[in-house]
């Protein structure tokens, strides 16, 4: 049974071995979607299903943020009528979903990725271009 590593423990012995960048998937246009293809560098660290599940959930969340539906139209029209001053007191739908995404990534990191010596970076910190996966050196696990 592998030891459970606390975040602190792992960080103390951590050195970055490599970084993998999950690129955007443009087959459906300019909506924010990431490729679900499993990168070969992660084969030894994490289960393919697990990883694809994470990326798929992220894609669904971004699709929800950019959805063109009645809610976005109402928000757009209301904002226009008030000369967009309504956003001084209200959060946009996209920002609300971005908060959800940040929470989801934090949760995934804590539960799944950090114990395996990996770290997901929120794509918003990289301009929504890539999902950066940091791979830490495996020193502690080979005791």
């Amino acid at each position, binding site marked *: 049974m592998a030891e459970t590593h606390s975040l*602190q423990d792992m*960080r*103390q012995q*951590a050195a*970055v071995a490599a*970084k*993998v*960048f999950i690129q*955007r998937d*443009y*087959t*459906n*246009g*300019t909506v924010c979607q990431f490729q679900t293809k499993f990168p070969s560098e992660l084969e030894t660290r994490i289960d393919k299903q697990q990883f694809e599940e994470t990326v798929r959930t992220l894609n669904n969340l971004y699709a929800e*943020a*950019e*959805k*063109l539906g009645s809610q*976005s*139209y109402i*928000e*757009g*029209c209301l*904002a*226009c009528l008030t*000369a*967009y*001053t309504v*956003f001084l007191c209200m959060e*946009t*739908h*996209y*920002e609300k979903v*971005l908060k959800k995404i940040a929470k989801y990534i934090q949760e995934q990191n804590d539960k799944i990725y950090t114990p395996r010596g990996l*770290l997901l*970076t929120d794509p*918003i*910190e*990289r*301009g*929504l*271009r*890539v999902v*950066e996966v*940091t791979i830490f050196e495996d020193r502690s696990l080979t005791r």
Partner: protein
Amino acid sequence: MSAVMITRKVRKWEKLPGKNTFCCDGRVMMARQKGVFYLTLFLIVGTCSLFFAFECPYLAVHLSPAIPVFAVLLFLFVMAMLLRTSFSDPGVLPRALQEEATFIEMEIEAANGNVPAGQRPPPRIRNVQINNQIVKLKYCYTCKIFRPPRASHCSICDNCVDRFDHHCPWVGNCVGKRNYRYFYLFTMSLSLLTIYIFTFNIVHVVMRSVDKGFLNTLKETPGTVLEVLVCFFTLWSVVGLTGFHTYLISLNQTTNEDIKGSWSGKNRVQNPYSHKNIVKNCCEVLCGPTYPSVLDRRGLMHEDSVCSCSICYMHHHHHHFEQLQQQQQQQPSATNHETHSSTHPQ
């Protein structure tokens, strides 16, 4: 030895590459050359002031007080849209950090294979298929990224902008994904305002001339002549521009694509982003989601004297771990996460 260095709070906008000017501690973002923008402001505010000073008192009394009220509302809307277009982030894409740039370079080299010495390497292009159409993504040498579809690099601001439309000197900023709808509403409301002022100038001159004669009218309200001149020349350009952008929106195209003839129909290329439905295209561009800025302008930067990359975005996790490692070596007690921002181990 760890020295305590009190670093002043540096916000990320101070270290952003690109030729933008920032105001209000990063809240306002504009291009460097602002001369024409001041001219736009002067023309709009000046003409409206003349209208309120000369025409409105007469028209409010002789026609209806609703006229100046509506003019005020329209003027406020125009100013709000102009300032929103000028001061907001058009959709700038942040440049790739060192590791991402290296990763992409390695991918490019792997894709190109071995190039014999002396031969020019093939251009860096990535092909993606969007809605059954092959779109070529170009590599940006300045930003070190493959530009997303519809993004373009603005040479004036030295940034890659998402859904780049054009750089507008009149608003002093690029027009891109995030501020296109404000730009469109600005041109449209400005057209309405110009037509409104022009019409009521004519009405005013006619009404007064009936009473006092044409030349006397002009002597009493000299501002009218100036306003009519400004409105006449503005009308042609602004109304034309509004019409042009209405056409672009209905086809879901950008000015950049239109100029380059990307979807002009030769070689059977069609616009893969268009919904083939005018209403849907308009709804997407004007009532679509409000995209957030991916440039974190007001975030705090963590000063790192040994940082290898010149653009020190928040390498929060990597830097954080190094700090904790070093602090752990010096003090075996549990470290407090809050202290690392003010102490700088050396």
